[in-house]
């Protein structure tokens, strides 16, 4: 069981989307989380001045599946068709640390005590990193909802925040009702439908071109960033092994050289820590940023898709009206349908425009913040490395 409290790290961690808690009337954060085997229990903390909530400040425990339920109900809600729905947080993935733990258990007999302790330390650090990431991404999801004028009023959102008992019953009911059908529909055909729409509106035409292209590029960039981070981690791992091997060699040598080797082993150990930090900071600032916006871009595409559907529906309703007029039957009904479809389409277009514009602003701000922070951290780590290395060189020279 591991738990973290991240008061000091909050500023650093909450980096992917910016300033989501700027409205004091509803402040949400996840100060604590517990990992029990496979399940992560998040502690949601709410502070609010909104009267519809029963208490001004309270906490509830929630599981990942509860977040998914909340996301799905929002997606299924017709009224929100014209909004960009904040992407669902991905399932917590402890596969990496778990694999390492397995390796640790297997190799325990063949390792020295120091090596074992070191690997254990690494393992804990990795666990913590995964932990931080998953807490961040769940927190941001809730904050996106709380900072949105429409979503924050959603009834299910309120239930999620307030309901002081297990949500699993509700989750089951929801699954039975929707069965994820709508979601699947959206995913499969969006590209085709979106690109097939004859766009009159300049704004949406541009957005469509941009989003389709950007979505594939950002997906690719995310994948490449992941590979880069993994290579960094491998290098850090190698430093670790080299340090161990140097220590072994030092054991057998005469005194003057022994100290030399031990100092070198030490330097590699420290370099490893630094390289690890570089890798995890890069991951948090760059890779996570790209990952998040890949999902967000998909959410924006979903909006375009829904609008395209609405347009198609409107065009169909026009055709049906013409047909009805020709036949002279059910004209009133057809007219009603046509009016409704047009209304829906217009509503989607209007809110869609607003959403997409604020989306771009949000994206730019987030990229800026993260790129700056990443760069500053890279500089910091490089400076630390340099002073470590120079210090070591001086010591070795004076021997």
């Amino acid at each position, binding site marked *: 069981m591991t738990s973290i409290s991240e008061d000091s790290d909050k500023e650093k961690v909450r980096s992917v989307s910016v300033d989501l808690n700027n409205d004091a009337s509803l402040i949400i954060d996840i100060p604590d989380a517990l990992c029990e085997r496979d399940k992560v229990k998040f502690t949601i903390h709410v502070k609010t001045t909104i009267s519809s909530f029963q208490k001004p400040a309270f906490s509830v425990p929630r599981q990942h599946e509860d977040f998914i339920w909340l996301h799905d109900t929002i997606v299924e809600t017709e009224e929100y068709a014209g909004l960009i729905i904040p992407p669902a947080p991905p399932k917590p993935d402890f596969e990496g640390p778990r694999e390492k733990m397995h390796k640790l258990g297997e190799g325990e007999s063949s390792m020295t005590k120091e090596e074992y302790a070191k690997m254990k330390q690494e393992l804990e650090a990795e666990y913590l990193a995964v932990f931080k990431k998953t807490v961040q991404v769940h927190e941001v999801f809730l904050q996106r909802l709380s900072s949105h004028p429409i979503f924050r009023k959603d009834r299910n959102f309120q239930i999620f925040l307030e309901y002081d008992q297990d949500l699993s019953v509700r989750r089951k009911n929801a699954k039975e009702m929707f069965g994820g059908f709508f979601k699947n529909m959206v995913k499969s055909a969006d590209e085709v439908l979106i690109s097939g729409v004859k766009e009159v509106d300049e704004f949406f035409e541009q957005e469509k071109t941009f989003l389709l292209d950007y979505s594939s*590029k950002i997906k690719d*960039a995310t*994948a490449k960033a992941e*590979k880069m981070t993994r290579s960094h981690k491998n290098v850090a791992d*190698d430093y670790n092994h080299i340090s161990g091997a140097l220590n072994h060699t030092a054991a057998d040598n005469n005194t003057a050289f022994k100290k030399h080797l031990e100092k070198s082993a030490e330097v590699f150990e420290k370099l490893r820590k630094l390289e690890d930090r570089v890798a995890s900071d890069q991951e948090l600032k760059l890779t996570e940023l790209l990952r998040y916006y890949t999902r967000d871009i998909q959410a924006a595409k979903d909006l375009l898709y829904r609008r395209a559907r609405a347009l198609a529906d409107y065009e169909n309703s026009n055709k049906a009206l013409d047909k009805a007029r020709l036949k002279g039957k059910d004209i009133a009904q057809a007219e009603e349908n046509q009016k409704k479809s047009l209304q829906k389409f217009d509503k989607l277009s209007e809110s869609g425009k607003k959403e997409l514009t604020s989306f771009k602003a949000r994206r*730019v701000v987030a*990229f800026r913040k993260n790129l700056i922070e990443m*760069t500053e951290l890279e500089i910091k780590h490089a400076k630390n*490395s340099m002073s470590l290395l120079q210090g070591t*060189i001086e010591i070795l020279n004076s021997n």
Partner: protein
Amino acid sequence: MSEERGSSAQTEEDEDLFVSAMESPEAARLSAEDLSPSSNGPRDDDPDDLFAEATEEVSLDSPERQPILSDGPSPAITPVSISPRVDVFDRSPDLDEEEEENRDTFDIQISVSDPEKVGDGMNAFMVYKVTTKTSLSIFSRDEVCVKRRFSDFLGLHSKLASKYMHMGFIVPPAPEKSIVGMTKVKVGKEDLSSVEFVEKRRSALERYLLRTVKHPALLKDPDVLQFLESSELPRAVSTQALSGAGILRMVNKAADAVNKMTIKMNESDAWFEEKQQQFENLDVQLRKLHVSVESLVCHRKELSVNTALFAKSAAMLGNSEDHTALSRALSQLAEVEEKIEQLHQEQANADFYLISELLGDYVRLITAVRGVFDQRMKTWGKWQDAQLMLQRKREAEAKLQYASKPEKLQQARDEIREWEGKVQHGERDFEQISRNIRREVGQFEKERVKDFRVVIMKYLESLVHSQQQLIKYWEAFLPEAKAIA
């Protein structure tokens, strides 16, 4: 056995495994048949010659045999003066102070450069320029350039090994052969991996020569001088057997042969036992370290490749981005990452050439050191065998005392004298090799410590340089990131 030899009966038994005649490289031919393990036991038809199978033709004229044989005929072959080399062999355990100093401050620079491909197809080979700059008097000129090919280096090593290893000298091993690597070069692939291969080999050959001349005996060896100076070099034949791996195989076979004869050496000198254990441990440790460093090189190269891929992807993302300032920043990020990729590549080269190759060299050197210890054991074995034989002869003589066969008795007495001489030689050889090994190992340890110190320092400096560059690149990017508006 030998065609050219003096009249002295003592020259008959020449059971050294590694021997060469000075004049003809051909005599250095040590074919695998000579050392087949299957026939290493003593043969009945020649009881005196315990190592008949493993014998090579010897020419008594080889000058280095002089100090070992007390009454050999004086050699008269090579034009190179013999006296300095005789000095090296015939001495007390402590090397001359002067010689020691010369080791540390010797003035010779060797570089291997300008690899050139000669010929086409499978018969092609690379030729390297070997430049020697020195003020030492044994060289005929201050600066000499010669062209050598890889098999020439192997040939040199085989000669040196066969001359000096049996005396306990640690002869630096030659670089490994590589069929795959060379085939690519021969076939004419001008790709990155062939270029890297040639550079790796060039560097290895240079290190090999530098290590070889660091050894004062080897530096003065006529074969070494000839290698460095003469414009024409007779082609080394059968270099298959003469490659570093080949020599090591022979050393190992020798060790096996010794073991097979169940020599249980009574080690009276704890120093040797200690050292042998030490080198065994060092072997394991260095191999482990080498593996870790090779892994580092591999991963750093991967990091470089992945950084390049990310840079391209970031550039494409920047192109796609419709917010102008962000688009620009992403393009700048791509440029920074490209520069960093280059940095990683350079660092990987430093990882490799500074540390990984050095460790590889030392792993091979240690095998040579252990081989030398095995030689000592073999020498001890010969001495013991001689003692046994002497005892047998004495017993035979005692028996003949009561039989009335005066000629046989005389022969027996002659044989006893002969074997008494051999026992003396055996003991002297053993003491000699023990002395030499002590000295060689002492020197080896000193060099090893020095080498590692220097390399670690250089490596740390390369890391410092990388970090400096990283700071530079990121500090240049920071304002670009801040400029996003």
